[in-house]
């Protein structure tokens, strides 16, 4: 074979291998196997993430050094009203009670608003706080003290106005089911720092999982090992983590020793490398039983920390989950996803109405999320932990008039046109506000941030170029940010 033929041969071989990874839905799993057998894959084009099969969550360096090493994502499920928390609009207060002008309604799709609704001014007092002078309502008295560590994004927009699709878009980049979630992408790309814990953990409070169900932490077309693992506040913190009653840790160790020996023997006879992987997974499970129980044990925290967060061990609460999030972050978990249900303030029921349950929700999150930021900061972890807060869309500046009538309680309908989120730590520009809404907080007026821009920015902070962070599926390189152009929002990052 002459030089050219050799080159051509190598190129074709390379193409064939890459081709397999690209087109086969089992690409990743098979790639693990392949590398275990001592093969390496060439890499050009999309990122090839190559790991030994026994370590699918092995830590990998990002594409470029990122400011953030991990993410804590606080999702306020149901979509909190920006008008009652951060996006202060004195103009809207003046218009309170007036009919909404027709030009605001034309071509709009609402979930419940019918005909011509009335405008609704902010329901709570606002004041400026910190050196940055950020506006925060009186519903968040604790959080007011941390505004100089936070970057508010007041120009968020989405194109989904129902909870489940909007949550899917917020977490997977697509409003339909079947795509990997942010946390899956991040753990796929970076692996995790503690092999004895899942790399992507999910904590839910408010008594409900989010509207879109477990798909918001699903792994879509990525191997299922990258899906979020839900931690539970009652019973085992991770499903089936504890040994059955009566099986001590010592007994489990003894049983595993026998199991490993027999499996090793089987490997020697049959020669299937998956057997060796299985042995290592059983060992990892054994370690996980210890580390996960340990990390989830809030009673190890001192009294002043409990006071700071407002935690009550043993109870499902956002406060407990915030403290757990810090402990998981400390223990090397890559992506920690919190959901707190109850922000769907239509005014259709007392538990969610702006003049009722909304204040309870604020009380539930104010102290713990403030404590989380402070605690991360005092431990020097805020610098490399990206904390994200937000709902799946915003709420209308109009009062909801469900069924074309004035409702007994006060509420607002879903508004995909504009909402507020905040980020802190992880290389985010602290003490700033990015973007602006219009004078009534209805549409974005300046510097719109699409969900895909938000994702691109998060990935950038973690060291990934969203355009080149892809996974091959059925002939296409799929990306979190999809096919529409997305941008890293430079104004958010330091």
């Amino acid at each position, binding site marked *: 074979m002459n030089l050219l033929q050799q080159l051509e041969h190598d190129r074709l071989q390379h193409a064939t291998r890459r081709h397999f990874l690209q087109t086969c839905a089992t690409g990743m799993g098979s790639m693990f196997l392949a590398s275990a057998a001592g093969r390496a894959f060439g890499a050009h084009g999309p990122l090839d993430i190559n790991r030994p099969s026994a370590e699918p969550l092995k830590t990998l360096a990002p594409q470029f050094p990122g400011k953030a090493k991990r993410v804590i994502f606080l999702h306020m499920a149901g979509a909190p009203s920006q008008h009652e928390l951060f996006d202060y609009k004195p103009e809207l207060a003046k218009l309170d009670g007036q009919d909404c002008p027709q030009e605001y309604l034309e071509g709009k799709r609402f979930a*419940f608003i019918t005909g011509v609704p009335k405008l609704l001014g902010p329901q709570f007092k606002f004041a400026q706080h910190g050196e940055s002078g950020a506006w925060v309502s009186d519903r968040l008295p604790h959080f007011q003290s941390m505004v100089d560590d936070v970057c508010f994004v007041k120009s968020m927009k989405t194109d989904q106005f129902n909870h489940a699709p909007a949550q899917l878009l917020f977490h997977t980049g697509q409003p339909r089911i079947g795509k990997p979630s942010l946390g899956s992408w991040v753990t796929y790309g970076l692996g995790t720092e503690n092999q004895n814990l899942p790399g992507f953990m999910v904590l839910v409070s408010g008594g409900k999982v989010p509207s879109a169900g477990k798909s918001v932490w699903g792994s879509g077309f990525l191997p299922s090992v990258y899906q979020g693992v839900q931690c539970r506040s009652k019973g085992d913190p991770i499903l089936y983590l504890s040994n059955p009653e009566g099986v001590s840790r010592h007994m489990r160790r003894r049983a595993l020793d026998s199991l490993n020996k027999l499996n090793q023997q089987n490997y020697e006879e049959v020669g299937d490398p998956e057997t060796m992987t299985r042995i290592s997974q059983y060992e990892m499970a054994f370690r996980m039983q210890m580390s996960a129980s340990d990390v989830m044990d809030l009673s190890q925290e001192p009294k002043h920390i409990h006071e700071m967060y407002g935690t009550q061990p043993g109870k499902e609460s956002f406060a407990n989950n915030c403290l757990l999030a810090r402990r998981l972050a400390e223990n090397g978990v890559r992506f920690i996803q919190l959901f707190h249900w109850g922000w769907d303030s239509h005014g259709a029921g007392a538990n969610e109405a702006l003049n009722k349950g909304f204040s309870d929700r604020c009380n539930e999150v104010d102290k713990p999320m403030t404590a989380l930021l402070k605690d991360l900061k005092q431990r020097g972890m805020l610098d490399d932990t990206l904390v994200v807060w937000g709902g799946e869309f915003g709420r209308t500046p109009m009062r909801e008039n469900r069924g074309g009538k004035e409702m007994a309680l006060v509420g607002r309908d*879903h508004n995909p046109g504009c909402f507020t989120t905040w980020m802190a730590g992880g290389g985010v520009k602290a003490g700033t506000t990015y973007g602006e809404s219009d004078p009534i907080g209805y549409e974005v007026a300046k510097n719109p941030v699409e969900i895909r821009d938000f994702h691109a920015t998060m990935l950038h902070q973690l060291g990934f170029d969203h355009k080149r962070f892809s996974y091959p599926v059925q002939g296409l390189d799929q990306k979190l940010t999809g096919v529409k152009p997305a941008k890293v929002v430079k104004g958010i990052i330091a």
Partner: protein
Amino acid sequence: MRNTLSMTLPHPSRVLLSLIASSLVIAGLSHCKKPDATMTVRTGEIAIPDDLPKTIDFNKHIRPVLNANCTACHGGVKAAGGLSFLFREESIVQGDSGNWAIKPGHPEESEMLARIIHSDDPMPPSDHGEMLSPREVAMIAKWIEQGAEWIEHWAYVPPVKPEVPNTSSDWANSPVDQFVLARLDEREMTPNPPAAPSLILRRMSLDLIGLPPTLEERNTFIHAYQSDPEKAVSDAADRLLESPHFGERWTSMWMDLSRYADTMGYEKDSHRNVWPYRDYLIKSFNDDKPYDQFLTEQLAGDLLPNASAEDLVATIFHRNTQTNNEGGTDDEEFRIAAVIDRVNTTWSVAQGTSFGCVQCHSHPYDPIRHEEYFTFMAFFNNTADDDDYDYPHVLIPTNEKAADESVHLQQELIALRDELDFSARGLATDSNWLPVDVIDTSVTGDGKLVEHEINNESTLVAEGTIPTRSQFVLNLQPQENQLTALRITAPLPNGMEGKAHVGFVISNLVLEKVDAKGTVDTVPFSMAASTFNRSDGDVSEVLADTPQGWNVYPYQFQTQDLYLALTTPLQLADDEILRATLVHKRGTERSDANTKRFRIKTTSDERWTNAPEEESRIAIDSKIQEHKARIKELGGTKIPVTVERPASAQRGTHVFVKGNWMTLGEEVAPGVPGVMNELKVANENQQATRLDMAKWMTSRNNPLTARVMVNRLWHELFGRGIVATLGDFGTQGEMPTHPELLDWLSVRFMDDHQWHIKPLLKDIVTSATYQQSAVASKEDHLADHYNEWLARGPRNRLTAEMIRDQALSLAGLLSEKTFGPSVMPPQPDGVWQTVYSGAQWKTSTGEDRYRRALYTYWRRTSPYPSMITFDAPSREFCVTERTPTNTPLHALITLNDPVYLEASQTIGRNIIASENIESGINEIYQRITGEEAPTSSITELTNLYEDALKDFKASPQDSKKLSETPELAAATIVASVILNLDQVITK
């Protein structure tokens, strides 16, 4: 940093090639080997090495090069310069300059070549990708010279039965083996000898029925195998294929494909009554229903002549799409999402093609055009369902005979109702209708009725904030004083026929006569008929004071009419007027069901007065009542089905520009992609139907249907398809490793086996290829890691369902019960916490705790935990294959999940009940692994037992928690280890 490097550094071959390419290509391969020939094109010369294949094969040599280098810009998404390399007619073209892109027979005049080797500005542009290699360029040049013959991608050419290769080996049992061996010979690889008989039986049993063999079955088989292996295998295959559990195993596979779930999905994720579809699948597999029939029933069972209950249950296949019942969702948006899912699922399941790409643009790599997505979508766009929970339903009695009777009655009922409407429509066409003058109107709330011209006729349009469930009151002056009937026409806005507009329900229409003094008299109606009524009920309800009535909801696509005959002709005095009240009692909080646009006319045609009394009409009416009574008597389960909307309410199908359902392009008629076999339309005077499409798909000439199914079955047995990409047979999919074998099996499936699956499976499991030992050395793994060439037997982890069923079966706990509603085996508390839903997991009792995994209640937003951990998909959409993983969470389940604990405890009891511990362990080991336990294993497990026993004796509290006695507790530990052995988790 590794990733950064890997991305920024070009591949070494590219560096070298780009350094040397331009000079080498143009100057020829002078410093390598003297080429035999060169070709001159506009921009230089191309060297043609003499070792190129004699005949260039488009699919083998050219298409991969085009797809890798050209189609990104000259393909389905973008056809730069009007040039696309997906279709011959778009490649062999003359550009504006008059130059040919490709001129068959004339490489020198083919501009494509000139552009590829252009020294300053080569194609593809350097920022778009690598240059073509000299060999690739030479190959294209030679192909053009040979006439640029364009051969369709293999998967679009119907399979022809190939010759079985003649290999001289006594290893081969069957034609399957001959094909496999021919490939192994080429690679100088040798196949493995057969696996141990007990392992062959275990593999066959798990593969065919999803359960391990019993000890007795094992012993019988080993005995028979010793005297006649071939017969033993054949008999065992027959026994397994006839097992009532065969259907259950293959239904599990089909449930992923058909996205079976017991709930509707999205936020509320409410219960959906579709378990009869699972029973249908089990029965169909057990009965070995021909696959062409099986597919046809699922795609278009409702359109089959004299559709049976079974045919209708089969159509649940496409009612497994999600419906979004969250408050405030747009029903049309999610109806379309469901239709798109049906199109994509049909193509993934039956055609192994990722059709979803074509939704937004032409297929990037495959010869399927953007518009063709929508012509195909048109087959599915007129089903009656509309994202309103599970509408439409049919009642299916449990008894099969009763079911058929009831289904026939329900279908007749629709036809009878239609007959009534049809005669009224005829009368309406003949009558002379006169418009009424609107004196004044009033509307509940802040809304008003405003007159607009629609289709050049004055029409009342509702405007402003009109509350849900409002009333419209109209004072009217008819043009003539005598009237016999009233007509309400609800048009669409001008020029919008066929497009979606929010519809309405008139619950009740009240007509009154008002005189000058204000005295009001009700004017009664004797009959109501309409051009369309979307409801499980009857349009006559518009005459009664109920919420049901004339229903054109949630969306309206065509102008619709309601006809109301007066009981007796009405004579209005000069000072009398009419008052019509439209009562709206339906509507959701999001979207009112008030009438949006309407006009009222009257007629004095006397025939309306007699119409309700006509004999034929009375006969139909009484038949309707009888039918309704009998259907009620037969009872049954209400299930969602696929049925067509009537012709009078057809939705137009339009191209979605760039895939956006709100941006409509041209209207299209139902059709299939041009690259495939021809579509035959049963009724030439009508548009093609879903049934025509199903018959097209299951036609002997369809190039994909048999291949895709054969490949899927092969994958189930070997863990890898002959085409590794089960869901992508297109040009970007993997090429088949054994194309001749795939075609041979496909033709055998269609012709010899007449689409029966069981004999095809028997062909495969009785082959030497399948029965090989799975033992492989490191060198074997290096030579063929994925076992593509099949020099060894398959070895794969069990599926989620098999792992659970096996544990229960080995413990003797598994229920033999087949069919029926889903069950709820134990699941940890708090797994279900769904928004806006009161559904609860109610743990089943008795044998329903121990049913096979496929009967487990499947909630989309929260599937059974151990199933998803072992890679089962959430069933929210069609998944053509599961991605197998190997994670610590698996170990937590098989060691700690109470299901596996209970199995271990039961097996532990069996160990203790045996003569002694060693024999107890050996027996159970054999039963579980299929193999005789090696002495070393027995020793290991016995030592474990002794150690555990010592511990449990020392801590009786632990012991009690685990089992009755320390002995049983220790045996439970041993059983748990055996259940977790690698050879137990794999097959």
